[in-house]
């Protein structure tokens, strides 16, 4: 908005006024930004940097803080539980990038266009996404309950009562059970993004495809999917960012158990800091997580602001 910077004081104004005006023009943006920057700096950037410092110490939360260099990080990449948490976070991210996004895309494609039932159907698919994660976790905890839960009760109904699986307590079922719950909540968000993306596709493209007599699948493959390139980038980036931050679902359903089987970086860090009083080590785990997050977020933000002069 170059025109604004060329705004000049009307002719004949006293000199002091012009100085004041120029000063004002310089400082004005900062006055608008000031409250947000203070809060962002003190309660987000500041704590972030403080925990970076902690990650270089062996601090327990009280007493002296001894600088130990990168030793915590060394241990992050050698400790078997931490590596498991890292792998689980990777698995979680991989699944969440692919599954909810794919289902969301398919559902968006089914529910696009006109039809009285499409709006309400979109709404129902999106509904779980607005519920508190903790509430969703507890609902699924009840479904998975080994003694009275819905799932085992259903198995019993169809004659498979002998299976009686401890879904969240079994080492082979706990992680898939968590992921199913996370996918259930997670479909709505990519669906909304894809619906918005589909709305941006020129109707002429669809018209042309229809005239060419393309099947539904062909239209999807040749028109819809390639036109959504930008949406794909957004979905993948936001899914990665969201998955790295996973906490409430795991914390409430398994707390990382059985054993440490479903531990992710978020919960493992939390346990280290608040249960084991290893503030230094926990912060190092957290910073590995933060680094992974920034590795995706920084390019994503740069890409989003690419047209910004």
């Amino acid at each position: 908005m170059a025109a604004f910077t060329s705004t000049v004081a009307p002719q004949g104004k006293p000199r002091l006024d012009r100085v004041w005006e120029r000063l004002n023009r310089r400082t004005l943006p900062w006055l608008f930004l000031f409250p947000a920057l203070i809060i962002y700096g003190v309660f987000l950037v500041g704590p972030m940097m403080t925990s970076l410092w902690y990650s270089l110490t062996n601090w327990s939360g009280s007493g002296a803080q001894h600088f130990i260099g990168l030793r915590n990080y060394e241990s992050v990449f050698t400790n078997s539980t931490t590596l498991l948490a890292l792998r689980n976070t990777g698995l979680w991210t991989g699944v969440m990038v692919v599954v909810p996004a794919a289902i969301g895309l398919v559902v968006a494609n089914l529910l696009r266009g006109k039809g009285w039932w499409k709006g309400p159907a979109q709404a129902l698919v999106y509904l779980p996404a607005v519920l508190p994660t903790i509430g969703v976790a507890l609902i699924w905890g009840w479904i998975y309950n080994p003694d009275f839960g819905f799932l085992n009760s259903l198995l019993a109904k169809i004659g498979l009562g002998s299976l009686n699986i401890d879904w969240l307590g079994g080492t082979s079922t706990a992680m898939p059970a968590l992921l199913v719950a996370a996918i259930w909540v997670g479909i709505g968000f990519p669906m909304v993004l894809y619906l918005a993306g589909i709305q941006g596709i020129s109707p002429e493209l669809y018209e042309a495809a229809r005239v060419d007599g393309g099947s539904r699948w062909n239209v999807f493959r040749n028109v819809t999917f390639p036109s959504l390139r930008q949406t794909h980038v957004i979905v993948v980036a936001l899914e990665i960012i969201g998955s790295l931050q996973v906490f409430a679902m795991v914390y409430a359903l398994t707390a990382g158990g059985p054993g440490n089987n479903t531990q992710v970086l978020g919960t493992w860090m939390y346990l280290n800091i608040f249960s084991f009083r290893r503030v230094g080590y926990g912060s190092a785990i957290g910073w590995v997580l933060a680094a992974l997050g920034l590795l995706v977020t920084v390019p994503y933000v740069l890409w989003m602001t690419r047209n910004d002069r």
Partner: protein
Amino acid sequence: MVIVGCLVFLAPVFVMLLTALQPNQDVVQYGPAAFPHQWTLTNFSQAWTQGSLSTYYLNSAMILLVKVPLGVLLASLAAYPLTTRRFFGRKALLVALLVGLGVPQVITLYPLLEITRHTGLQGSVWVLLLPYLAFGLPFEILVMRGAFAGLPNETLEAARVDGASEWRIWARVCMPMVLPALASLVVLDGVATWNEFVIALTLLNNQASDTLTIGVLNLQGQFGSNYAQLEAGIFVCVIPMVILFFVARRYLTRGIAVGAVKG
């Protein structure tokens, strides 16, 4: 087909509701996959009184009512020069503010806990206010930036030529023109604030100051094996979001589209 699909998809919600609507001994005896033998509403009233849900509701509502308008106001102020003015460091600042989207809240928890120990606010729900504002800003600024960028340049220019101050242009010209985006943002921010979990889990230290997300976790310990009452409590916890969702669905989905897609 679609109706069946939707019903299956929402089965977890129905399971919760059906469990909450029958006496606990029936749940234990017949299992939750059975159709209720008797219906009752007492689980809800008992969950409400025994679980002190009214306290949690009040705390969540208080923090929401202060945090959301304040956050949207701060973000609208900040996004205005970031979008409509050119000044040194603008782009770097914009990127720095938006990058907050990818900062995991867990890494700030211990330092935040230390800060709250010094503020004297400990034990009150208000310890959440400033961290919530800080973590809300990146998304709020993203949405407001998208909204301001869509304003016609000529309108701002005309106001400037007329000699209106920047504050006046912001308040009288820009803000009224972005009301739809503001409405979406208020709804989205409200949902995020109501549902926030990990910061509340760390900074709140007594039941009297707990928000609803922590409260519902308390219920799990408190009601033990009274599953019907627990499910009723969970239902009471999630129902405001369900209602809000049906009232403001349009704002919600449009806000996401504006924030993420338009960028």
